[in-house]
């Protein structure tokens, strides 16, 4: 009998089946890797285990040491000895390591008068850190002065403070924020825990880590387990294929950009580095082309919109629009050049408190303003026309924007910028959190804009279907630069995943500062 067993877990969100009949077993002293593409259900499974989500009725049972765990009961899970390190470590910045360790563990020991016995506490913290092999951490240091790996170590130390009680440790992409050379230290810590009989669930995007660390691997795809075996029984290529979806999908592009070569180059990144993730990225996009950018988190894909919006400082290289170097990066600067960016994240697009109409027109109010008069009627007419053209439901311009569904909101944000008739359109995760029908609509608008208006479109997406569905070319990013270009038919789901995951040396990060 395994230490932790999850049986037939299903979870349905409104309009979407996130997990169906998923099982997972973790033995004592075993590292079990859980892999899968974005949206495959990994984090839903973790959140069910932690008690954050409740699974659908009829799921289960989940057992630890043969004792059944109750679903939706975070305290019970904690008491049973399961600990979680989430991607967001949840450290309290500005407090010391000692204080952060105490955060999870109840009270400080006090002398009469409620005076904290700092000396005892400090001694205690030092001893516990040493137990985990973390002697280099000093209890009095502020956590916001620590590097990424030390922060992760503090979070692990906090999760493990009553270390005798800990049976299972769940690490959710713990290396996403870590530079490569630091990953080894984290692995050493995990191995020490495993040596003490702790079972580890290791969620990661990086296949090389799976092979370095894990004993078993389970692949999730679209909410079901498509593979589960000892790591030794698979090779990297098989694993990538399993994550991507096995069969090679036939690309269904509306138009192959046969004449793309002759079109104007509208957007070009020439050796662009940012202070963040890009390290000498080179690519260009021509009029009428839809170019997909694919890559894991940290690969640099998301620094492309960030650099254009002025949120990541360009440290080297040049961004050109229409052949001329861009001098002022930032939303208004690039808008003047006809470049529009639809950023990821609802809170960065939704102007709650304004109506759907006002959200649609905010990027360009010029057409309604003449002779010192704002033509509200003209604005309403255009809003209604946009609602109709983009199929936004319900077609009520005066509805508060926050009352629209995610998909319809996203259409509003795409329409907001498309109505400014941009020459270049960059979309960051445009279908994230959008239902299937809405996604298809949005992708159709993007394709039409390129085909009919000659817009140069850049699609930064972690959704393979999006990339395969509409892109003429897909650029795979690794380590802050374009690692491979997949043109037309060559851009299959399998090829994209392989290029993104199969880094020979892994992503080459600059040393953490």
């Amino acid at each position, binding site marked *: 009998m395994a230490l932790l067993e999850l049986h037939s877990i299903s979870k349905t969100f*409104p309009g979407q089946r996130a997990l169906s009949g998923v099982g997972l077993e973790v033995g004592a002293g075993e590292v079990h890797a859980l892999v899968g593409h974005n949206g495959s259900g990994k984090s839903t499974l973790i959140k069910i285990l932690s008690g954050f989500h409740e699974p659908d009725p009829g799921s289960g049972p989940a057992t630890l040491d043969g004792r059944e765990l109750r679903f939706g009961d975070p305290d019970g899970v904690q008491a049973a000895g399961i600990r979680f390190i989430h991607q967001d470590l949840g450290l309290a910045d500005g407090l010391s390591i000692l204080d952060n360790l105490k955060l999870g563990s109840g009270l400080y020991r006090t002398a009469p008068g409620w005076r904290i016995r700092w000396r005892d506490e400090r001694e205690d913290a030092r001893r516990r850190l040493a137990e985990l092999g973390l002697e280099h951490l000093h209890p009095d240091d502020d956590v916001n002065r620590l590097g990424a790996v030390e922060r992760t170590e503090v979070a692990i130390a906090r999760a493990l403070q009553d270390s005798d009680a800990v049976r299972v440790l769940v690490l959710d992409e713990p290396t996403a924020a870590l530079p490569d050379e630091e990953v080894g230290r984290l692995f050493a810590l995990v191995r020490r825990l495993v040596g003490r009989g702790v079972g580890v669930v290791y969620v990661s995007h990086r296949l090389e880590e799976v092979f370095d660390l894990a004993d078993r691997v389970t692949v999730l795809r679209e909410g079901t387990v498509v593979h589960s075996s000892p790591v030794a029984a698979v090779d990297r290529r098989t694993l990538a294929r399993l994550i991507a979806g096995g069969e090679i999908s036939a690309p269904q592009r509306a138009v192959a950009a046969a004449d793309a070569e002759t079109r104007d180059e509208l957007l070009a990144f020439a050796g662009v580095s940012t202070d963040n993730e890009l390290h000498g990225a080179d690519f260009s996009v021509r009029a009428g082309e839809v170019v997909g950018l694919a890559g894991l988190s940290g690969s640099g894909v998301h620094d492309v919109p960030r650099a254009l*919006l002025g949120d990541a400082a360009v440290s080297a290289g040049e961004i050109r629009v229409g052949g001329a170097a861009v001098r002022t990066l930032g*939303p*208004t600067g690039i*808008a003047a050049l006809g470049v529009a*960016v639809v*950023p990821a994240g*609802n*809170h*960065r*697009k*939704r*102007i*709650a*408190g*304004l109506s759907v109409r*006002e959200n649609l027109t*905010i*990027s*360009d*109010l*010029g057409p*309604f*303003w003449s002779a*010192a*008069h*704002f033509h509200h009627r003209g604005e309403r007419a255009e809003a209604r026309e946009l609602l109709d053209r983009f199929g936004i439901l*319900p077609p*009520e311009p005066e*509805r*508060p924007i*926050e*009352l*629209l*569904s*995610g998909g*319809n*909101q996203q259409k509003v944000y795409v329409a*907001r*910028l498309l109505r*400014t008739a941009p020459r270049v359109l960059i979309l960051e995760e445009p279908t994230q*959190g959008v239902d299937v029908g809405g996604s298809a609509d949005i992708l159709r608008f993007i394709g039409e804009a390129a085909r009919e208006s000659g817009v140069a479109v850049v699609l930064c997406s972690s959704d393979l279907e999006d990339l395969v569905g509409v892109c003429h070319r897909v650029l795979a990013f690794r380590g802050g630069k374009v690692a491979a270009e997949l043109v037309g038919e060559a851009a299959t789901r399998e090829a994209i995943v392989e290029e993104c995951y199969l880094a020979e040396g892994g992503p080459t990060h600059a040393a953490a500062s």
Partner: protein
Amino acid sequence: MPQLAEPTLAEGEPAKSPPARRNQATLIERFAGPAFLVVMFLVFAALQPDTFPTYNNLIAVANNQTITALVALGLLVPLAAGVFDISIGGILTLSVILSTLLFQTTDGDMPVPVVILATLGVGIAAGLFNAILVVRLRIEPFIVTLGSGSVFIGISQLIANGKVISEHIPQGFTDLGRDEPLGIPAPLIYVGVLALILGYVFVMTPLGRKIYATGANREASRLAGVPTDRILYLAFMTSGVCAAAAGLLYAMRIGAGQPEVGGQYLLPAYAAAFLGSTMIRPGRFNVLGLLIGLAIIAIGINGLQLNGIPSWVIPTFQGAALILAVVLTKLRGLGR
């Protein structure tokens, strides 16, 4: 009344509430404030038919609110843009002291327009100072203006040397606050003009829309191409110049400068602005709502005083109005 029991919408979940019901609620919401004003007016008119509903009393009540109105109208711009400005009391004080001191030190020789322009200029500069700290250094507007407001009061006390300034204030200056062309006190005309200008900007210009967008979600508006930094500069400079104008009006009407006048206008200005945001255009700081909010507070206090209720009622009534306004806004938000 919005229902508290309704569950709040999760991110990305489709809305279910039927639009018809919400529109009805909005109609009641929009005019509950004005209706309350009318009812209150009628009640006081019935209680004190000889003193309350007279032309003289009502004009006096309105005239008494003109300084508050100028401050509050200016405050509307930063509030609509989503930032607090609580330095307006300090700017008002500085303006009172500066304008009277300019006359006193020049034995009343400095031309009135020069004094007015110089004082308004200082108000703009004070707003610019706030805006630089908020925009460039990304400091919380509340903290910035709490500090700067106190600094402005300190500077006022320094240059006034702790004394009341009342010498050599020319009549040409004080008349501007005391004239009654066509029987209407001049201050009411100033308030009317400012209200019309701001109402026009808010409702009839793209700038007004951009101010509201900045207040609704600064980051999303910035990414959508709204020059949010410039909007914030404009907002603080507008509230600064309006507070300076209110200070000038105070100096004109009183004919003297005391270094501790500004504080009394802060609370009623906020109370009126927040009360106003619950009516006419609920959820949005708006000019007409503000004027009605101001009227509710002023008439409420006047009516209570005429009925012999003591003066401690004033701050209580103002504070209660502010809290009530915020509570109403909150309930409305929860009902969504």
